[in-house]
């Protein structure tokens, strides 16, 4: 265990002027003859946060995985602390001081925080695992990050997603990492949890750790990063100080063309019709006293912190955990939806938050997935929908090798489009979207937004949950803010982030300083 002897820890200036800790150059990689990385390189300095951006498929993940030793590189060199390295396993990289926080958590839910942090290298004393020492060391690491609300003894299952993310970072730190790579660390976090991650990253930065930060959320990239590298189609586009760039320029470099209307306006001819979905004093075990109305052609955004009851609300509408109080009307008719099958028949569609676990059968084909609901609920229409499927997939711009390809080989954005195709086939009148653009690239996001606008024009009522405030603001005709299981505010279109955040955190009443702080932070 080399302790505190690394150059980064001593030169904790936070300024990125030192010698680079990590130099990657000319990295190349191809899978089955398809080149995914062509001659990409970058330099990381102690105390620097280096953003790596690009559309899905641009090669960001491959680049990180080569550095981490998950993949072997075909060509190129990596120097860590002045020495050439070639890792064959993430653990080998971590022991050499290069830790990676992968997008998918590598945690055992049934084991404690400490057992997870030291998984695979449990400290021993007299031949036996030193459990006390493990817990003590984990506490020290948490303290160093200023985290006092995670119990090193608690099972990981009892932690929130954000807390689990912190455990992943602590795991990286436990090997005295000089470089930490983070792949989409905020993909599963709500805005206030992102703030917590920011403060942790800044602490790491002060300690002289170099951070390679991959995110689709451009605001985070600008908030955090000193330097930004753009990849496109496996090649390096540019590396510049963040101060020299702005969002429009970055997006232009990522996609190669400017996205004039990132959030498209309502399509001409979209009209607000009769209320399609009405809730009056609706509640169950998880939400309470919700009043809500979504009209035909309307997009209502639901904002709120993770755990505020957003998902529970749409699940109640869809009959997963039905309302037990109040009333729910669909197209003016009082209904009691008590199961998903009934919901589908009633004209509801729910695009769930976790598409891999709840939205898709990953090892089945695109066609099987897209026809799943139709087959089980409206089996007579299966044939017609199957014939239309290639056209639907084309209109959604799904990039695939055909309808028989297994969805696990599609990118996140294309997987999400398959989920959407599955639900559009049922011709829903009310569409419930739970985090529809989580973890998908800019191009796919815009495709989802366009689709929402098109559905609205066709008279569909849309309810969209999102943790990304710009998305809520950019897309919604009205914004419902959830807090602690109830609707804490209903705000008009184009409300500002500070107001939404204040309602979401329950601090709207304070007005002055609190709101200003929250607003400034976002």
């Amino acid at each position, binding site marked *: 265990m080399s302790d505190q002897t690394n150059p980064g820890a001593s030169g904790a200036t936070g300024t990125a002027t030192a010698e680079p800790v990590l130099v990657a150059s000319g990295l190349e990689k191809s899978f089955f003859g398809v080149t995914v990385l062509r001659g990409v390189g970058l330099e990381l300095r102690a105390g620097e946060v280096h953003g790596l951006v690009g559309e899905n498929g641009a090669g960001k993940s491959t680049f990180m995985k080569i550095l981490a030793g998950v993949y072997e590189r075909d060509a190129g060199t990596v120097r860590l602390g002045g020495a050439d390295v070639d890792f064959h*396993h*993430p*653990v*080998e990289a971590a022991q050499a001081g290069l830790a990676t926080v*992968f997008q998918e958590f*590598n*945690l*055992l*839910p*049934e*084991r404690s925080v400490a*057992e997870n942090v030291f*998984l*695979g*290298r*449990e400290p*021993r004393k007299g031949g*036996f*695992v030193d*459990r006390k020492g493990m817990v003590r060391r984990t506490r020290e690491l948490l303290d160093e990050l*200023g985290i*006092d*609300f*995670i*119990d090193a003894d*608690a099972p990981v299952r*009892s932690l929130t997603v954000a807390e689990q993310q912190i455990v992943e970072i602590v795991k990286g730190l436990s090997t005295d990492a000089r470089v930490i790579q983070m792949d989409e660390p905020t993909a599963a976090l709500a805005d*206030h949890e992102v*703030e*917590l991650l*920011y*403060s942790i990253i*800044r602490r790491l930065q002060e300690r002289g750790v170099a951070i390679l930060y991959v995110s689709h959320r451009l605001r985070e990239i600008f908030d955090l990063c000193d330097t930004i590298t753009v990849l496109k189609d496996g090649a390096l586009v540019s590396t510049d100080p963040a101060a020299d760039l702005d969002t429009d320029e970055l997006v232009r470099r990522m996609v190669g063309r400017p996205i004039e209307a990132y959030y498209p306006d309502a399509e001409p001819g979209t009209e607000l019709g009769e209320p399609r979905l009405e809730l009056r004093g609706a*509640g*169950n*075990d*998880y*939400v*309470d*006293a919700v009043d809500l109305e979504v009209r035909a052609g309307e997009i209502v955004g639901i904002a709120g912190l993770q*755990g505020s009851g957003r998902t*529970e609300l749409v699940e109640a509408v869809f009959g997963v955990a039905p309302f*037990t*109080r109040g009333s729910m009307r669909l197209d003016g008719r009082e209904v009691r939806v008590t199961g998903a099958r009934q919901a589908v028949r009633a004209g509801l569609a729910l695009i769930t938050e976790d598409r891999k676990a709840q939205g898709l059968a990953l090892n089945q084909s695109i066609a099987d997935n897209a026809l799943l609901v139709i087959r089980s609920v409206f089996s007579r229409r299966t044939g017609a929908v199957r014939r239309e499927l290639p056209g639907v997939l084309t209109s959604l711009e799904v990039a695939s090798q055909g309808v028989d390809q297994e969805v696990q080989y599609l990118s996140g954005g294309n997987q999400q489009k398959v989920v959407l195709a599955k639900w559009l086939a049922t011709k829903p009148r009310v569409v419930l979207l739970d985090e529809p653009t989580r973890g998908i690239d800019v191009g796919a996001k815009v495709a989802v937004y366009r689709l929402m606008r098109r559905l609205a024009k066709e008279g569909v009522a849309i309810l969209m949950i999102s943790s990304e405030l710009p998305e809520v603001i950019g897309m919604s005709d009205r914004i419902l803010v959830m*807090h*602690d*299981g*109830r609707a*804490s*505010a209903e705000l008009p279109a184009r409300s500002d982030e500070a107001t939404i955040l204040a*309602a979401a*955190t*329950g*601090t*709207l*009443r304070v007005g002055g300083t609190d709101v200003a*702080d*929250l607003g*400034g*932070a976002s």
Partner: protein
Amino acid sequence: MSAASAAPRPARPRRRRRLDASLIVGIALVAVIVIGAVLLATIGRNFFSAGNIRDILTGMSVLGFVAIGQTLVILCASLDLSVPYVVSLSSLIAADIMAGNPANIPMAVLVVLVVAALIGLANGLIVSKLKVNGFIATLGTGLIIKGYLDTNYQGTSGSVPWDFQLIGATGVGPIPVSTLLMLFVALLAALFLARTRTGHRIYAVGGDEQVARLSGIRTARPVIVAHVLCSISAALAGLLLASRLGVGSPTVGTQGGYDLLSIAAVVLGGTLLMGGRGSIWGTIGGVAIFAVVDNVMSVLQVNPFLKDVVRGVVIVAAVAVYTSRQVDRRRPRFGPRGSVSQATDAPGGSDSTGTGRPGETSSDREEVRA
């Protein structure tokens, strides 16, 4: 600004631990004992008499040995169906080698343990290296052993000297030596799981093999070790049965139904059938529950078929209880009639969500909504 928003988060109170599974087993065991004692009292028998306690503890020891090993295997998400044949084979090897001569005892025990270890090694290698599902792999090795037994033994064989029979026959007060040995092995297994790296890795591999692999764990090793230890503990059960019977028997394992009963005891003890969570002491509790239920029904002279019905009900009920406890991951935030919607919320009413966010009182919310 980040520091400002991170700092005021209050220290989170120690989370309320979910009721530990082995604690539930303990409670269930006490309940079974109380019910059994009352039932026996109605026919004028004393559940707690030295003789009855000895009977129960004797009933625990053989299944206990097998279930300890089964726990290790199930924790790493495998299964061992070959245990009854290993039990029979061990009893035969032991009785044949001993051949009534006390001098042969050490050699017999050694050979039995080595043979069992080799069977376990084969199971472990098939499961971890050939990637054959544990259910199928051990069904296969079990059948192979069964074929060997059926071909070479028509009935009981060998002879166990009196010195060795003492193990199954003597006790310290009302506690049989065999039960003490079983509990000692359980203690070793529990220490192995809690205090060795291999023990920790058994949980890791069973919990999520991918996570274990990415954490640098060689995932085959814990599985192999668990299978070897499982076969060895089944062999100990075979030795104990040989000691009790005085001979080796090719059917003693299958008659005991140790494959499914041991799995049932493990699951009854709160270990997840898909691995990653569970404990040895829970398993011992499960074994004890079976022993008490069997004992009470024997003393009451219940129809033997009804015995199996009761066992079946116990197993299904136990797993149903555990499953229902896993579902309530999300704690309800509101009561059946919603929160108190009157003007004044009672403090500490229905708003304790356990997430400990700052500034979160019922009055806050009312003002936001106003």
